């Protein structure tokens, strides 16, 4: 119940929540689309922002672990179209709220770059590479992704393969612990109309610990919905663990709300 005081939305009954979400979707689906939105919350797509476009993305990831442990991670990101095929993003602040301790803490800031190689409609297969660097309070991480995507009319299918390395320590140059993770995501989305798309996402995470070897993979699967209106868009994915790893989150959800300028 502690978390409910923080986010009252979670205390509503399932029926109320479903009705509220349906009402919002119906309202938004009557409008035309303009935002160059993301179709998925976990899976990146291969196309980059148009040259000169600036977009603000706010990301919230919620994870529920066994024992009623709930985590909320926030990310505020500014994206900028550098060229026809390259996009740069600045992670202004990543921070986390711990529902158990009822406190929040700054984690890191960073930079992200995406370079597109091929187009998901014009070419046989859309492709892009993604690089990210993050630095924070005793934290340094590097992340790389290969992004593949294909658009078939109203259908979008995208796949990401990702490798991540993370170092922790008291200060830069004195990092003690390192860990890695391999992961892949697959997203399939169907555009019902200009303002509403629904789909599913699949996530596989393979924690590498201290690089001693791969641990057992965790699989997650769940539905996805994206709504858009004018310069705004929002996408929400809820993933349920389909494996049986007690140490990993049983449910996780991510929502991204974006606005372009």
């Amino acid at each position, binding site marked *: 119940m502690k978390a409910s005081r923080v986010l009252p939305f979670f205390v509503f009954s399932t029926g109320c929540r479903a009705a509220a979400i349906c009402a919002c979707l119906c309202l938004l689906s009557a409008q035309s*689309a*303009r*935002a*160059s*939105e993301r179709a998925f919350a976990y899976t990146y797509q291969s*196309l980059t922002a*148009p*040259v*000169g*476009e600036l977009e603000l993305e706010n990301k919230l990831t919620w994870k529920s672990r066994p024992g009623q442990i709930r985590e909320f991670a926030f990310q505020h990101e500014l994206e900028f179209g550098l060229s026809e095929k390259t996009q740069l993003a600045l992670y202004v602040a990543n921070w986390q709220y711990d529902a158990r301790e009822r406190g929040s803490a700054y984690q890191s800031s960073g930079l992200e770059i995406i370079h597109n190689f091929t*187009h*998901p*409609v*014009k070419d046989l297969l859309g492709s892009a590479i993604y690089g990210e660097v993050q630095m924070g309070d005793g934290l340094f991480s590097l992340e790389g992704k290969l992004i593949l995507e*294909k*658009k*078939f*009319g*109203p*259908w979008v*299918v995208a796949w990401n393969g990702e490798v991540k390395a993370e170092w922790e320590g008291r200060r830069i140059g004195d990092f003690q612990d390192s860990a890695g993770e391999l992961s892949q995501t697959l997203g399939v989305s169907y*555009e019902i109309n*200009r303002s509403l798309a629904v789909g599913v996402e699949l996530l596989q995470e393979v924690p590498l610990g201290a690089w001693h070897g791969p641990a057992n993979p965790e*699989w997650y*699967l769940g539905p996805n919905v994206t709504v858009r209106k004018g310069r705004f868009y929002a996408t929400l994915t809820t993933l*349920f*663990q*389909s*494996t*049986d790893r007690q140490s990993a989150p*049983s*449910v996780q959800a991510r929502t991204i709300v974006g606005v372009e300028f």
Partner: protein
Amino acid sequence: MPISSLQAVVSVYGRRLVCAASVFVAALWLEGCAGLPPEVTPRMLDFSARGKTLPDLEEGRTVFLVACTRCHALDAPDKFSEAQWRRIVPEMAESSKISQRAEGLLLDYLLGARAQLLAQKAGRDLR
């Protein structure tokens, strides 16, 4: 309970689900390739503004494929009337930040492709 049900479904039907998904994606691929907007033909020049060339229309088709799909699925050129396209294209061009030249080429291609598709549907020979 939904999580344990999901785990059970994945463990029992995992391989079948992967096979079904592969067939689904392959079907989409074929459908997607077939559903691309019409290729540029010399006939389209009859319906475009004076002075336009085939490379101009090709460029307009590329703008249609690249800029429009950034935000949404493509509509068939004959879905809207000429007047509607003349209203829609400038509106969309603004939000997708394409140049005025690209906007003009896009409109030329759409009107040319639209006229050709309508003529084909009507069973008329354009020449």
